[in-house]
Every structure is written in C-alpha cells, then in structure tokens.
C-alpha cells in the first residue's frame, strides 16, 4: 500500500540517483516495491527448501512468476482499503503488512501462527492491516468482498475492496453471483483477474470460451482492462486507476493480468501436462528480473538492489530461525472459538483422564 511507512532500509537510499517518479511513484516507492518482490521470492524459496526437508505441514503453493502482479496490485491500495488474497498472492499479503514470520509459522503450523494452527499455508487475515483470510472454496471470496465493499458504500467511506480471482475460479457460480451483485450495487470493488494459463491441469480454453477474462467482465457491465501481468509498473498503473475510479463511486472495476503459473499447482505437482517450451519462454519473462532491469535503467544502482536482496534474505533468515523453534498448538486449544458464545466445546467424555 502506498501510504504505508516505507520499510526500505535507509542505508540504501543515500547517494542513490534521484530521478523523476515513474507512474507517479517516488523512487523510494519503486524500491519498496522491489523489496516486496524479492521478499516474496526469497520467502517462497525458503519455504521450498523447508518443504523439501519435510519441515512444512501440508503442501506448498507458489506464486513463481506471479509475484509482480500480486505486489503491484496491492501496492495500489491505500491504508483503510481491504484485499482478499488467493493462494498465489503471498506478495499482496506482504504488501499489506503480513510478515514472513507469520507465513512461516502458518506453514509450520505453530501455536504462534496467525490461525493458531487451524488453517493452512497463507489462509490467514487481519482486517486491521487490510487483508482478509481466504477459504479454499473457489469463488466464495468474491461475494464476501462485495459485501465488504458494500459496507464502504453504505457508510459512505472512501475505501476500496480488492479481490483476486483466478482464470479457473471465474467458472464458479459464487464468482458470478458476487461479480454481478457488486456490479448492480456499484460498490467500490476492484477485481484482479489472474490469467495465469492454468487451473491445476486445466488450461483456459477448457475453462471458458472467450479469449480474455476482460470479455467476461463485459458480460457484467464491468469496465475492464487487460495488462501484461509480468510488467510490474503496468499492473500498478492499471490497478491504481481502477482503485481511483472505484473510490470515486464508479463501481466495480476489473483488471486482467496476463501472467503465467511457472510452478506446479502445488509443489507435489510435476507439471507433466505443461509443454516444456512454454515454461522456458515464461522463465525468460520473469517479472522480478524485468522490474530489476527497469530499475537499473536509471532508478537504482546494482549495489542498492543487492542490498535490498540481502535485506529481504536476512528478514527471511531471521523469521525462519524463529519459527523453527516454535512448538505446535496445545491440543485442546482446538476446542475454543467456534462461537462467541458458547466459547468452548466440551472435551469428549472418553477423553477425561
């Protein structure tokens, strides 16, 4: 989020070249975006290592190749706005203030994890910081976010809700009902349609009979743009405009990002159904590498970016060191908090000592 206090390590800034802002972004913000990008990737790479060492509980879902659209779209929000991430929006969550430590704790199912070991991977949220935890059932977050946007409208608050939806998930009835409801109610909702070429092993051609997700948006009367999802600044700019319009009372806005899921659906998936060349082609189109190159063309120096790389890496290292030591939740903590009242479920009669 642009208004967030910039966590860019100050050491990097002095002496760097000052330049005119790109897409209305200050240099510090450009660097901040960069840091979120590398933080996302560093964190996922650490998770991959831990996954391979059998140190995670459950599967690992990666956003490799999609870090750019996640970070850039979230970065277009203001404090007070709320987004709901999907499984590949780790970057968006980091931008909103989720920490690598929280993510590691989730994946390691520690007692200290935001969900206290109740839900897995990045299924967690914090409305204070502006992100809502997802559930697995695809499409369901769209109506829920429409409701959050509706609350902004009813209260006349100048806030915006942003929801991600995958190319595959647009097929769900829940997504349809939510988009349509939001469009009719003209609530301040921005929808990021992630066209990443796959829904598990199913390509878009088997998911819908239009070319672009933007075509679907038109069927709801929702203005839509399609952008190169691996061009960080293009995604930022498109989302920022959408956010502006939504905030100005112009109703739902749709931004389609064309990107590519370079990892398997989850790490157990060997992607045997993916053409090798396609993977190679997209590896050449890495959003972080592209953004880095763009920054180096006048906005930042190699040492500056190297320092950010290391600082992200260090943050991940510290977090991993911390989470590794933490125990799982106490068994009977499972029995609280289903309801506000009653606050606790009784332990089964045959469990009493």
């Amino acid at each position, binding site marked *: 989020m642009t208004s967030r206090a910039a966590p860019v390590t100050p050491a990097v800034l002095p002496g760097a070249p000052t330049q005119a802002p790109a897409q209305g972004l200050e240099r510090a913000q450009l660097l901040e975006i960069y840091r979120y990008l590398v933080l996302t990737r560093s964190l996922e790479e650490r998770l991959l290592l831990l996954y391979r060492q059998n140190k995670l509980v459950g599967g690992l879902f990666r956003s490799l190749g999609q870090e750019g659209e996640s970070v850039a779209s979230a970065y277009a929000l203001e404090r007070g706005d709320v987004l709901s991430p999907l499984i590949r929006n780790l970057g968006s969550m980091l931008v909103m203030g989720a920490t690598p430590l929280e993510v590691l704790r989730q994946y390691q199912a520690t007692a200290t994890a935001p969900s206290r070991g109740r839900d897995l991977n990045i299924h967690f949220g914090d409305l204070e910081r502006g992100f809502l935890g997802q559930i697995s059932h695809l499409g369901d977050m769209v109506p*829920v976010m429409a*409701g959050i946007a*509706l*609350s902004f409208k009813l209260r006349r608050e100048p806030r915006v809700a942003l929801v991600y939806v995958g190319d595959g998930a647009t097929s769900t009835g829940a997504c349809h009902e*939510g988009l*349509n409801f939001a469009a009719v109610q003209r609530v301040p909702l921005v929808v990021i349609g992630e066209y990443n070429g796959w829904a598990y092993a199913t390509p878009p051609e088997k998911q819908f009979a239009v070319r672009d997700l933007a075509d679907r948006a038109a069927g709801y009367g929702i203005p839509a743009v399609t952008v190169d999802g691996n061009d960080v600044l293009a995604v930022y700019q498109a989302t920022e405009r959408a956010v502006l319009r939504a905030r100005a009372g112009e109703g739902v806005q749709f931004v389609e990002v064309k990107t590519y899921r370079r990892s398997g659906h989850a790490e157990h998936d060997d992607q045997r159904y993916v053409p090798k060349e396609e993977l190679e082609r997209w590896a050449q189109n890495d959003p972080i590498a592209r953004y880095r190159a763009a920054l180096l063309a006048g906005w930042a120096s190699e040492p500056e970016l190297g320092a950010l790389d290391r600082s992200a890496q260090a943050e991940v290292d510290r977090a991993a060191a911390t989470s590794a030591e933490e125990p799982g939740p106490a068994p009977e903590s499972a029995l609280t908090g289903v309801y*506000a009242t009653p606050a606790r479920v009784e332990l089964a009669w045959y469990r009493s000592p």
Partner: protein
Amino acid sequence: MPELTFLEALREGLWEEMERDDRVFLLGEDVGALGGAFGVTEGFAAHFGGRVIDTPIAETAIVGAAAGAAHMGLRPVAEMQFIDFISCAYDMLTNYVATARYRTGLGVPLVVRGPCGGYVRAGPFHSQNVEAAFLHTPGLKVVYPATARDAKGLIKSAIRDEDPVLFFEHKWLYRRIKEEIPRGEEVLTPIGVARLARAGTDATIVTYGATVWKALEASEALDHQGISVEILDLRTLAPLDDERILESVRKTNRVLIVHEDTRTGGFAGEITARINERAFEWLDAPVMRVTAHDVPLPYAPTLEDCVLPQTGDIVKAVQWLTAY
C-alpha cells in the same frame, strides 16, 4: 395491549432493531419494493431507504455479501424468499460463514431468515425443512420460534448475537397464531433456552416450530384420556438446551420427539442420542419419533397430509409410550 400475529410480531422485532441500531440492514430478493413474498418487510424500504436492499436472485451473493458487511461491523439481515433456496447458499454458509470465527477470530454477526415448512400445499420446493443440514455445521446457530412473542424476541436476539444465526419462520404460523405483546416492553428471548409450552407428568414431547401447535392439540385430546403431557418448545436448535430436555426426561421418563422434517437424518436422532447418553437410566420406554416420512414433500392435500406428522399421530405415539 395489541394482539399481534406471528408475522406482525416478527416484523415489529425487525423494525425495532433497525430503529435501535443503524448498523442493521436488510438484503434479499424483493425485500424492498415488494416487502418480501409474505410482506414481512413491507414498508421498510419507504422508512429505512438505502438500508433495505433488493438484490439479484443470487443466494450465495446475498449471504456472502452479508458476511463481508458483518465483518466490517454491520448487522445484515438476509432474507431467503423461501428457506428452500438457502440450499443455493449452502457452500457459503457452511464453509465461509460458519468457520470464519474459528479460522480467523473474525465474527460474522448476520441473520439469515426466511419462511419454511409445510402444511400449506406448496409442494416440494416451497415447504422445506432444511434445519438438519445446518445443525450439522459447527459455527452456525439455528433459531426456530413457535410463538408470536418468540418470533419477536428471537429475531431481536438473533440480530444482537455475535454469531451467525439461521432464523426459521414457519409460514403456516405467519398469520395463524396471535398473541398479546405489550408495546413499550423490550421483548428479548434468549438464544439457547427452550420453553416449557405445557407442563405435564406422564410423557415429554420435545418439538419445535409448527408441530408445537400440533403437540398442544394432541395434549388436549390426551388430557381427556387422563394422560398428562409435558411439551418442550426448543426454540433454539443450536445450541441445544440439553439441560431442560434432561430435566423433563427425568421428570416424565418417557419422551416423544416430534418434528416436521423427514425422519432419517432429522434432528430427532441427535436429541435421542443425547438423551441416551445422559439419561438412559431415567428412561422407562424408548425415545420415539414422530416425523415426516422420508420422501420429498408432495403437494396434493391427501399426499401432504400422509407425509407430514399430524396431531392424531402424536396422540397415538404418546398412548403407545405411556402404555409401554
């Protein structure tokens, strides 16, 4: 003191809560311009304006949007035009709404309400009893008033509750029953507390909704035969008032559970199991059930009457129980 029908009492409860708390708002199909298929919210749109939202036909969106708004501190009351259509929001309710507090500590104080039940020749898709499907889901509260007073008292409590509440309004009761409800009084029926609809000594009937009235009718017939029946109107199905049920079981030692829902998988099974586990020694006869037969509810009067539990069935079952 005005006599109010079930529907009028319900309406008054809704109205009072909207007056009291401007976080409360209504959404659903035709709740505004029309005031709902049964007129429960007639006049609300004119008075409360933008706080009454006519939605597209999209139960998942209605419930999902209510959940989102509830997260942000509002108090949505969502209507299902008939409760039968709640099945279209089953995923949203059981997966998103019911689990939100447990997963994330995030409350979802919403109410989903709508007309349910049969005895009105409305066929298989406008007469359903869907409570069992949701009683199975931890995280949802299920409220089911049988009297006008409780319709008012429970809708008000439901709206104030911090948890998501499914609120069942039996359409056979809407205009059939009347009760004096004092104006100025703040009528609040606590959630989770059953109501002793009739005290008795020979057998207990545990029931809820329309069949409370069938049980009352039966109890009069039984009275003439010297059989004294106690009737417990559950009012809230989740959380269930185990204590009052057990108390009555320990008093009469014979239990009949009556519900309009179909037999297999209906809530009577759960209640039977709980009584067994905690009061087996107190039972002088097996816990028995009077329920609908296990078929979709047909529409022809002869068929509907055959499928649904009738007053005479309750009389017979209690006779059997007390003779056991």
